[in-house]
């Protein structure tokens, strides 16, 4: 009857709190759904893209089946996720694309978040055209020629300019500045969500229509719709320092893991496991594709991967 007892304790303590004694630090309050039924719970943040879902699916599977944890997942956008991580409402973020400002605030100053090491995957953002288009117009993959082909990319949304499709507002993007600074005859159209962007890309690809899109790797969609990157002026350290003046490509970012500091210290096996969790782009894509293309449930996909990659994950548990 542990549950009853917990409920009773909860009721009593809420009563005590209502009478207004003592301070309550909301940054130390866990999710109400955590640790239900006496199981130890880990709460993972899932970002909206499938790669992140793949990380979480595999971590969740192993935590549940190998370590006996109960795992809750919460989908939050990246920046708010940092805040949630700092508050301990989320225990870990498994894939972060670089948020220097948040890193400084939470990791260095407040020390509420601890670094969890690299994920093992390197991320890269860029502009892409479908490979069938690149084959047809080989010089289209250089930004200098984009204006020449802008008429191909016209849509009702972009009017008489070419359409450069951007995705979720949570993603890092310099595209508006790039279009302006490189003097491109293009209009940035925000799909507003990755789901919308992927759906649109797939529709274009189905009809072999031309399109130019902001996209990132690793991403499972490349397997389904082969795309070729358009070369932008090369990235140099610091060329993206002033957002309005950016005129260079996006960098290659080693993706990082972050843990709530309390969890990193007291999270026991789970924290140790998450710190060691590291895999390759291919691994991630394999799982992503199962989830997104084959529409397997994340759990089934994770199981399939885990069953066939024992050597990889055994290292994480040791």
């Amino acid at each position, binding site marked *: 009857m542990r549950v009853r007892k917990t409920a009773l304790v909860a009721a009593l303590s809420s009563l005590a709190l209502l009478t207004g004694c003592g301070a309550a630090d909301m940054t130390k309050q866990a999710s*109400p759904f955590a640790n239900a039924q006496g199981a130890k719970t880990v709460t993972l943040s899932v970002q909206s893209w499938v790669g992140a879902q793949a990380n979480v699916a595999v971590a969740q599977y192993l935590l549940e089946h190998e370590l006996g944890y109960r795992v809750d997942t919460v989908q939050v956008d*990246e920046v708010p996720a940092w805040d949630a991580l700092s508050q301990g409402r989320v225990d870990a973020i498994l894939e972060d694309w670089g948020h220097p400002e948040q890193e400084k*605030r939470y990791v260095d100053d407040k020390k509420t978040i601890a670094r969890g090491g690299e994920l093992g995957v390197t991320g890269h953002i860029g502009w892409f055209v479908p490979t069938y288009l690149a084959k047809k117009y080989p010089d289209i993959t250089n930004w200098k020629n984009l204006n020449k082909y802008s008429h191909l990319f016209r849509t009702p949304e972009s*009017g008489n300019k070419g359409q450069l499709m951007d995705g979720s507002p949570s993603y890092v993007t310099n595209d508006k500045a790039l279009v302006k600074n490189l003097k491109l005859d293009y209009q940035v159209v925000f799909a507003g969500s990755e789901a919308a962007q992927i759906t649109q890309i797939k529709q274009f690809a189905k009809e072999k229509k031309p399109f130019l899109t902001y996209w990132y790797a690793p991403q499972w969609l490349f397997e389904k719709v082969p795309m070729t990157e358009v070369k932008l002026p090369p990235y140099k350290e610091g060329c993206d320092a002033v957002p309005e003046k950016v005129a260079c490509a996006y960098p290659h970012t080693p993706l990082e893991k972050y843990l709530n500091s309390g969890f990193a210290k007291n999270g026991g096996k789970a924290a140790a496991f998450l710190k060691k969790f590291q895999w390759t782009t291919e691994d991630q894509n394999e799982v992503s594709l199962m989830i997104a293309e084959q529409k397997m449930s994340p759990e089934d996909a994770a199981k399939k991967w885990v069953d066939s990659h024992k050597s990889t994950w055994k290292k994480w548990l040791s």
Partner: protein
Amino acid sequence: MATITANPPRIGLPALLKNRAVHKLLLLAAAAAILVPLADARWASGTWPSALTLDFSEPLAKASDWIIDNRDSHPLFLYFFGHVSNVVVIAVRAVYLTLLAIGWAGVTALGALVAWRVAGVRLALGTAVAFLACGLLGMWVPTMQTLALMVVAVLASVVVGALLGLASGLSDRMDRVLRPVLDTMQVLPAFAYLLPVVLVFGIGVPAAVLATVVYAAPPMARLTALGLRGADKEVLEAVESLGSTARQRLLTARIPLARKELLLGVNQTIMMALSMAVIAAVIGAGGLGDRVYQALASVDVGAALAAGIPIVLLAVVLDRVTGAAGERLGAEPEPRSGLGWLLALAGVVAVAVAGRLAGRLDWPEAWIVNIAEPVNRAVDWMTAHLYSGVPVIGGTADWAGHFTTWVLDPVRDGLQGLPWWSLLLIVAALAWVIGTWRTALTAVLAMAAIGVLGVWKPSLDTLSQVLAAVAVTLVVGFAVGIAAARSDRLERMLRPVLDVFQTMPQFVYLIPVVALFGVGRAPAVAAAIVYALPAVVRITTQGLRQVDPAALEAAGSLGATSWQQLKQVQLPLARPALLLAVNQGLVLVLAVVVIGGLVGGGALGYDVVFGLAQGDLATGLVAGVAIVCLGLMLDRVTQPTERRAKKGA
């Protein structure tokens, strides 16, 4: 009064209206003649003059930083918000753990037996089926999470709403203060509530619950006040004449007399809380909404639907059960109702204990039916065949393209091309002719606030989408509504469809919408139409059906054809309802502007999504406030004489 030969009033009324309208317009024109040249000379520009804008981004960003830095140290947070948040967490947790402890069989039995006691056998069966369906779809735990959050949020909303309603129902001064606030809150889109609570509480369940309470309490407050104020005066007088104290009057007469409204308030609160609990997934509410949201990320309509169906089922069951409970009030009390409850309770305990002994508290995995795959196949097939290349009529993509080029673009460019002061004038004229000078003033101030916030252009972009969506919604909605009002069978067939579309989380149909219409403003408009259409159809049908049957009979006896009856009797008499439909259509369309931002609608909706996603409260809040202002403006411009207490949930 309502005779058929409506000729004299029909000539008289427009003439009168015209006179009054002309009068008002002349006055307005005179004012404009003085003010416009002044304004134009000072700030000559087509768009809102930059001299008149205020930049809020700096202070807002600072405030946001301050809150994040001080959340764990400042007394305000430690001793107030911290406790609030803590109580919410503990309460939700307690309910959640209780639900899990009862087990799936126990919860199903509890739901069914409560429904049986308050609403009868049929709804009890429906409730049981709904709960079992949640389990079958593999959504048991998320359903319980949503339910736990809902229970806490609804209880809090009902208490807060009832207290506010009591204050406003008993004190005229409170009523004068509260009424405009509550009225305004009715028209605000749900997303507008998310940012401020996130600012204070951060992502998570406390923020979600509080946003839900803020969203769901106003209808309770309004209806409580309405019930208290609408009580039969003579009954109150009789009670007073017997020498009751004020307290006795309140407890034995006023509150019991308002019980119908109170129950309707609870019903409304539950419906709104449910819709908000889903939307609040964006700020970490967890539960079913989160599952829908996650499925969206992997472009998996099937999975989104699997999480969406339990929401619809919960909504329909809760609506019907509370509705039926309301209808049962005042009927013959069942002689042994205490015994019935006891029986019900015993049944729940028995089932829960049995479930516990059998070790079957969690929904058995073997019983989960996977609907995602067939649904996805169906959606794929549909989009593949409709997207383009349909002979003669073209594909949906072509329609979307034409709609963008021929409707959305001209409207947007037209609005953005108008000088700023002329837009203010148009708003003033419309609001004044339809309403009073007060509504006109509010509308103009709301519009001006948009300019001051510095989001004039994107707001007009959003406005153009809203207008286009409302136009389509009204045309389709009136047509369907009229048809449904004339055919009982059609209405019966429509009812479940409308229920589903009204309660289905909007996230679910985002992907099909994009798959059919591509990315951009057209799909945003489509999503808005899907969302607003049910309410418009409902109000139209109800309005037409409530037309005095005697008037119709009289018209029929004079040999009017059914078309003549519709045109000359039903539509004119249902005018208030139709105006209300316009108003509700606008409010609802505006409510999904943010959703439109997720499919490429851009403008304000995108800014709000951006603000939420990037934690950029300056952008998000300003855009949110602008949406609120647009809402206020549109509501005031179309404010019908009588406002419905209900809000399409």
